[in-house]
């Protein structure tokens, strides 16, 4: 290990130990040193992850591996306590419900609840070199039921209802030019804005569909509509990108606020 690496490591350890002691001595409450340790650890992990922006380094690797390990353990424990203990045992056995201290659900016993247990065990057979093929049965069940369950829902909500939402009047609440100009407003809920919105939706859907229609060459009027379709798609991607930037900045604001408020205490 290089000398500079050891010096940097020693400095980092010193800074965070000093932060822990300082926070522990200034905190109020039942266990100030524990609170101080947790805040300091959170700050260290935040900075360790952010250090990747400079370049890959051991602190980032440590934080990343810790996150993956803790997440895996967390979700495994959660799966056991929320699905098996939370959902299954109260419907299966009073004795086991008492053992796990969860309320037994009277009158909800059904022998068929044993089937998920068998399927769950079969899924774990994937880890066995010889019995791996057995895991295909529960997997087939999961794929089949999910596909069946989602098919109807998606057909209704994402297909039929979306078509219904696209069939909209291009002229909204029209009472003649006189009424249009006397009530004229640029407000988002005004007649002009509503008509504009509906026209954009109509043109956007038609041109977007034309762009994805490949059985006819994109030339002439058809080609021009297709190019409008590309523009519509590009604007959509741009809006998505803008929203994504906003989301990521919000997360950064969250972490910086934590560092300034809870760790460094330089803001209220």
């Amino acid at each position: 290990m290089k000398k500079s690496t050891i010096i940097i490591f020693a400095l980092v350890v010193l800074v965070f130990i000093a932060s822990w002691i300082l926070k522990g001595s200034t905190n109020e409450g039942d266990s100030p040193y524990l609170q101080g340790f947790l805040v300091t650890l959170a700050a260290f992990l935040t900075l360790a992850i952010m250090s990747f922006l400079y370049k890959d380094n051991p602190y980032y690797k440590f934080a990343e591996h810790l996150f993956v390990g803790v997440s895996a353990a967390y979700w495994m424990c959660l799966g056991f306590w929320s699905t098996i203990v939370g959902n299954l045992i109260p419907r299966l056995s009073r004795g086991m419900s008492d053992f796990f201290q969860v309320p037994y659900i009277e009158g909800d016993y059904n022998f068929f609840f044993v089937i998920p247990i068998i399927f769950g065990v079969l899924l774990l057979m994937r880890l066995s070199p010889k019995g791996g093929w057995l895991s295909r049965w529960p997997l087939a069940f999961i794929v089949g039921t999910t596909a069946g369950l989602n098919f109807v829902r998606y057909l209704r909500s994402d297909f039929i209802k979306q078509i219904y939402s696209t069939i909209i009047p291009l002229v909204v609440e029209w009472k003649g030019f006189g009424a249009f100009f006397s009530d004229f407003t640029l407000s988002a809920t005004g007649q002009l804005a509503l008509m504009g919105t509906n026209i954009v939706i109509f043109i956007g859907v038609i041109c977007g569909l034309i762009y994805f229609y490949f059985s006819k060459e994109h030339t002439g009027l058809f080609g021009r509509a297709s190019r409008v379709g590309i523009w519509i798609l590009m604007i959509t991607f741009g809006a998505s990108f803008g929203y994504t930037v906003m989301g990521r900045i919000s997360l950064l604001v969250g972490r910086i606020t934590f560092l300034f408020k809870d760790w460094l205490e330089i803001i209220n």
Partner: protein
Amino acid sequence: MMVHNLISTILITGENIGVTVSLAVIFGGLAWLMYRSIKGREVDRRVIFLFIFVAVATPIIFTITFEFKATPIVRALYDKIESLPENSTVLLSYDFDPAMAPEVQPMANALTRHCLAKGHKIVYMCLFATGQGQLERTFREVIRPEFADKVDGIDYVNLGYKAGNEGVLNVIITDFQKMFPTDVNTVPYDSIPIFNNIKSCKDLDFIVSIGGGRPGIKEWILFVGDPGDIPIAAGVAAVVAPQLYPYYPNQLLGLLGGVKGAAEYENTLKDNYPRFENSDTPAIKMMGPQTLAHIVIMLFIIIGNILYFREKRLGKHK
């Protein structure tokens, strides 16, 4: 408009030397980078990160806030809660984790404030296991300090997390008790007064899913809203908001998209309810860093384009 507000902030609050100096450093630095890019020098990506950090940190240290007028899609959600008669039952589903919390926790807290102030009853539940911890934050930050008179089981109830994703929704659309035989405090369903006239989701007056992942609002629409013809609205992380716009207004009554949606809602709530004048408004505070960071990003896009077209003109670009 926001750029105008920002400039006004700089000019009018000239005495705020911290803001002025920080903004001068940011925009001066950007002008210098622009000059370098015109001269054909490339900008290191770490410089961009540094600028974004300063742009975000400055408004956090020297608070810069703006006023927001609710857009129709946010207003629709606000008006729906306003129009419900007193004692209506609203379900708030916390379908998010700590990673999404900076964006959506302000929405959850604002919606809780609005519902309780209006006299509605709230049923809390989570489709995300980690939503339980976020729900506890709402209890700690909003309900206990601001609505101490509200009673657990009568004015609100916490059903907690239930594993099963859309399977949970598929059951509670016909029978709540089957999926939630007790609340988080193991009080039996039949003993909770709020559920006296509620058997399933169809008996609820309004549902709001707050989240941004899966399971989330899409599953609520597919498995509860559309099949049961139940009014649904959402507060979501910005990343998923564009995917949900097509559902508005027929399948989704209103939508709070990202921190801007949350800020608009907080502002509307503050304007209409004087009791929330001094309540915490994290989303409004977050819009200062957002605005400045967006301006910096836009300027970097311009700098990048200058560099691109310059290289293209010189024939360097392949």
